């Protein structure tokens, strides 16, 4: 080995660790803080954010029970919003069946007792919403949506329980962020043999309701 090269290597050996040590010491010595940051750690905690996926409401309306004239309808419903457009809903309603035209015209014995005339139902449904806006006037606007629903449940009428399929459509007007005005139309379809041979009946219900998000 050339002597100049040997001394170069030796020099390198001497220099390198000192260079390293200098580097480490420079990283270790952080400049002193001028202002201590007093930032309160406020991570977004999901539990702190109020989640409003449920909606509870009452409704009043009219139901036309097939063969038993029109009656007023009162009910309660609970909705769970799964996504911005899909929701599930449980509803319960009560009405009082009227008289058939035969009963009214003949003046004969009634088909059903008062207790059997009580109409009550529950159903569970899945719905799909189409969101938009409704302009009441040019500058007065509400968020609104139109929805379709389908479900199944049970209807108690004429002293029996009946498996019921429901299909419906409705319209929601969001009065505020949490208060909703709803108009619903539903067809409750079940088999009935109350006034003769078994047949499929369609019972149309229309209602107006108010519900709140929570």
């Amino acid at each position, binding site marked *: 080995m050339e002597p100049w090269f040997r001394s170069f290597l030796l020099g390198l050996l001497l220099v390198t660790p000192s260079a390293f040590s200098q580097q480490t010491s420079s990283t270790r010595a952080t400049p002193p803080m001028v202002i201590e940051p007093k930032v309160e750690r406020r991570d977004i905690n999901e539990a702190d954010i109020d989640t409003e996926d449920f909606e509870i409401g009452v409704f009043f309306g009219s139901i036309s029970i097939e063969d038993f004239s029109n009656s007023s309808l009162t009910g309660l419903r609970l909705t769970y919003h799964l*996504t911005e457009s899909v929701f599930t809903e449980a509803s319960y309603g009560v009405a009082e069946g009227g008289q058939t035209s035969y009963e009214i015209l003949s003046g004969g014995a009634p088909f059903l007792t008062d207790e059997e005339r009580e109409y009550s139902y529950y159903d569970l449904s899945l719905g799909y919403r189409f969101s938009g806006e409704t302009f009441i006037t040019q500058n007065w606007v509400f968020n609104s949506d139109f929805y379709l629903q389908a479900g199944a*449940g*049970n209807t108690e009428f*004429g002293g029996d329980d009946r498996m019921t399929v429901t299909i419906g459509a409705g319209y929601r007007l969001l009065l505020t962020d949490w208060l909703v005005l709803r108009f619903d139309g539903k067809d409750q379809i079940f088999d009935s043999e109350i006034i003769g041979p078994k047949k499929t009946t369609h019972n149309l219900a229309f209602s107006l309701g108010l519900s709140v*998000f*929570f």
Partner: protein
Amino acid sequence: MLRVFLHLSLMAFTLLSSQVRADTAEVQISQAFVNVHTGPASGYPVFQVIERGEWVTVLKRRTNWFKVMLGNKQQGWITQADLNQTKNITGEKTQIKEGSLANFAERDIELAIFAGTFDSVNGLSFAGSWVWTENIATELSYTQALGDFSKNELLMLRIQHSMFPEWRLSPYLSLGAGLVRTTPKASLVQSGDEVRNSDALELGLGARYYLNRNFIIRLEYKNLLVITDRDEQQELNQWNLGFAVFF
């Protein structure tokens, strides 16, 4: 009835008024811009845009949408995807957890609705379960099956064992006991009131499929042994397909 409604609506209103919370979170927009909608769905129009560097206050959540208050006190809704792009006060990326497969394994409560057949009759069931450990859960269910001749109601309490709770398609076994109430159709049996109550034992096999967020699909088969007052015991088969939400 009306009184019940009044009470419930009163309860709902008190719930609402108590929900005004002091805890809000402030986040800083780190994307070029974020669209602010008038309502919590993509169908509602965009009425504002927030730019990078602006701070907004997160007020509440509805499904995958978050209500925010902008600097000019205007309020609007932004998507969860956009919120996940923002930064919090310490400069870290905001992460709002969405239900995940990991949450599915760690769920505490599950609520389910089923449609199915109960010995060739259509049935509807509701079930609520409490998950004790990853593997073991207790479930209470109510089934209503309406046949041509009778109405059957079942109230069952069961223990479920999930063999592989961490799998997306997670099978389970269940063992239950309960009551079966059979009411003959009033239109067929004029004397009525021949309601029969029987005890029942159940052996079930099912599977949960984790869909997304906090939704599950469940399919199950149950074999029921109804212990009747008569000499023979009745064996029934039940198939259920259902949808569940977990918390």
